[in-house]
């Protein structure tokens, strides 16, 4: 890496080298039995330069070929955007624990056993369910160095345990599932299985939904797939800078229900999305986004922050290109109402676990619309069964303007969101 940096410095005013290497071992089960063991090794290095004031970028998996990497970056810098930021000279970072050495000592045999136990718990409840399960462990190393002397490196361990089951009766299909992740090894398949068993219980009976406005409780998974995609776009500093965020000029204004608090937090110990610094070497921080319903901040990387005359929030993230602002882990503060209390409060309404296709509409405008892949009907304060062939539509800015209650039971969804259920007064429901 030092070699690449040294070569780049010869032809550029500024340079930064970012390297990620990972070793991952996914153990996969199909049709209720072990099917596939994988081992994945990967190393890639990305070079960002500022040459004649402009940004150049190149990446490779071939660490030995520094000259080609530098040449590629130089070529792109002819056309790159003017660099408006300075690379950080930071070398000290907050202590954020994301590596558990126990991950290394977990054997493939133990991972197989975990998967088998998980599947057995689900199939002993519902013998005709067909499950796919995945047990994964991985270690990822990050290192970044730049021409201003800034440098950072850390290692992260990741463990994941997940299951998806399909239950088919005639042409009727029910899909249930849960996955959990941590930097620690997950050793309790029961925690995952219990979520799935509850879904199976609630979906046992069928219920029908009418075509009209109905109150809706979004479970944590429901929040993740219906409400979060529009918010992620809207709080992205880049969307704001372009004037394409509906809340971009409403900083400090109350746009959402005062019960709503949302923040980005990469500093929680042993969470897979935590990190001591972002992918540009900016120290991690907790960034409030919604405070008591009020728009508090947007998320920035170095370049976008400079363009917007503000500071990076440590949200520069890379996925195969230059860093862009991206949330790490979004947290919605729990409220006071239990899920049972919410359900008891509803005369006629829905509980939504998964809304298929919700992220495929005008996400920038806040619209979402999807088919209820997993959801339940509530009648007179009780969940009476699963609904199907039902579309639910809304706009996140209307839905979250006044919510009836925020749940007290928060939960991680997919490693990137920790949220309680959210109970909303009226969404448009269309059904067959």
């Amino acid at each position, binding site marked *: 890496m030092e070699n690449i940096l040294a070569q780049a410095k010869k032809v550029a005013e500024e340079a930064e080298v970012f390297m990620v290497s990972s070793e991952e071992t996914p153990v996969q089960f199909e049709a209720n039995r072990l099917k*596939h063991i994988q*081992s994945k090794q990967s190393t890639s290095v990305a070079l960002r330069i500022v040459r004649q004031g402009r940004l150049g970028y190149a*990446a490779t998996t*071939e660490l030995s070929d520094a000259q080609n990497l530098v040449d590629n970056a130089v070529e792109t810098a002819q*056309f790159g955007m003017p660099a408006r930021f300075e690379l950080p000279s930071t070398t000290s970072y907050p202590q954020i624990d994301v590596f558990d050495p126990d991950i290394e000592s977990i054997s493939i045999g133990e991972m197989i056993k975990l998967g088998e136990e998980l599947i057995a718990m689900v199939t002993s409840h519902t013998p005709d369910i067909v499950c796919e399960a995945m047990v994964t462990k991985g270690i990822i190393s990050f290192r970044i160095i730049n021409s201003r002397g800034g440098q950072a490196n850390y290692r992260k361990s990741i463990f994941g345990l997940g299951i998806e089951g399909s239950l*088919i009766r005639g042409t009727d299909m029910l899909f249930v599932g849960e996955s959990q992740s941590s930097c620690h090894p997950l050793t309790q398949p029961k925690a995952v299985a219990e979520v799935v068993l509850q879904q199976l219980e609630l979906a046992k009976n069928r219920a029908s939904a009418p075509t009209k406005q109905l109150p809706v409780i979004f479970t944590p998974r429901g929040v993740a797939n219906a409400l979060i995609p529009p918010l992620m776009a809207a709080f992205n500093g880049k969307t704001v800078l372009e004037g*394409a965020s509906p809340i971009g000029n409403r900083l400090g204004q109350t746009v959402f229900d005062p019960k709503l608090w949302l923040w980005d937090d990469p500093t929680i110990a042993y969470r897979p999305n935590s990190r001591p610094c972002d992918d540009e070497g900016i120290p991690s921080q907790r960034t409030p986004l919604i405070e008591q319903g009020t728009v508090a901040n947007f998320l920035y990387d170095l370049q976008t922050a400079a363009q917007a005359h503000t500071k990076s929030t440590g949200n520069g993230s890379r996925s*195969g290109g230059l860093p862009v602002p991206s949330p790490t882990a979004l947290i919605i503060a729990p409220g006071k109402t239990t899920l049972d209390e919410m359900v008891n409060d509803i005369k006629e309404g829905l509980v939504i676990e998964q809304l298929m296709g919700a992220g495929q509409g005008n996400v920038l405008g806040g619209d979402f619309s999807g088919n209820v892949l997993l959801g339940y009907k509530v009648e007179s304060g009780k969940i009476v069964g699963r609904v199907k062939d039902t579309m639910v539509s809304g706009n996140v800015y209307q839905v979250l303007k006044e919510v009836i209650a925020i749940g007290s039971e928060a939960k991680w969804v997919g490693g990137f969101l920790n949220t309680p259920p959210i109970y909303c007064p009226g969404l448009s429901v269309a059904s*067959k």
Partner: protein
Amino acid sequence: MTDIEAIGRQLAEALKGFSADYIEARLEESQRSHITYRGKELESVGQATAIGGNVRALVRGGWGFVSFDSLSDLPGRIELAVKQARLVGKEESKLAPVEPVVDIVSSEIDKNPLTISLAEKKQLLDEYNALIWRTPKLQTSIIVYGDSHKKVIFLSSSGSYIEQERSDIALRLTAVATEGSEVQQVGLSIGSRGDFSSIHGLHQQVEQMAKHAVELLSAPQVKGGEYTVVLDPVLAGVFVHEAFGHLSESDFVYENDRLRQIMVLGRKFGSTELNIVDSAAIPGLRGSYKYDDEGVPATKTYLIREGELVGRLHSRETAAKMGEKPTGNARAINYRYPPIVRMTNTYIEPGSASFDQIIGDIKEGVYAKNWFGGTTSMEMFTFSAGETYMIRHGKLAEALRPVVLTGNVFTTLNNIDAIGDDLEMNQGGGCGKGAQMPLPVSNGSPHIRIRHCLVGGR
């Protein structure tokens, strides 16, 4: 650069020395470049190269898979894959037999897109961006251009050695219009099998796209409910991909007895006019190839013929376990993943109806064009339109906000009651399955009419 051909030849020898029912390896070198715009300025331009490979081993029905960026110690990686497979395997290995192939396939295009200068690419994108920005009330634009060229060497313990080169180009343009806190967006996606000229001459389409984004600001939203819906060839292509294509991928079916009962050959899914095909063997489309990532030659597979289920897409393993012929549909997005059953170029064959005949007798319906996206759960699927209009008394009427449509595979195909004569293939999409996305595919269809289609709305 590392010479993967030399390594491939050594590896072909090495594969023979291990005890497994079957071993295959892929080595890959790729170059890619991207240019993105957000707003008036070019935002990011970059180039990337990658070299790597994988080994996959089968022992008594269990698979081991090892992928790597470092090409050192390949015998050690083969050994690891075999060891993993042995941990899994508890039954008999089943793979549909295929003849070993030795072949070298060059990319079909005249010019590798990576050899076209960044300046030339940028100039064309600048023109499109300027057109978007000429539109009044337009807030911003997003343009994402990416191209790639790769060479893949496939070799197997049964003696196959196949070198294949391919290029790919994908371009998505989005125009965003705003008024107050209203934000509307319209997108346009184009792709090709590496032919840069395929993205030339889009000026008129780009201009229309930007104007439409502004029009949507004052467009009403449809009232949710059931409608007679007419889909244009682009959206109907996404529809056939989501509504039926994924269910034809036999890796979902082959070990699931209940699904096998539902997906029994001969089952009636639609009218006798309905024919659905998947074919990687058509040359020059984004889903085309000569051999899949298991070294099986591409085929043309009828999935539905005259309304009946007549075929499905296979890997060597799913074909063997279902007692059917392999179709050459095992694909991996790159060397970091094992091949899984995927679609290639999927389309509804043309019927006989003209567009006027299709909409002529609709009193009130929805005309949905272009795509945002689509997804499926097997039974249910959703797909979203980029542009939507009401149909009133047999004529196209006012523009609506884009809609999300949904259906049920087992009823919706039966509700197709008119198929147009105007088949078009759309090359702008990418398909996701597992963690492997976006895989280059193409979809196509003529205009189709669907009765009783559920549309989300206010």
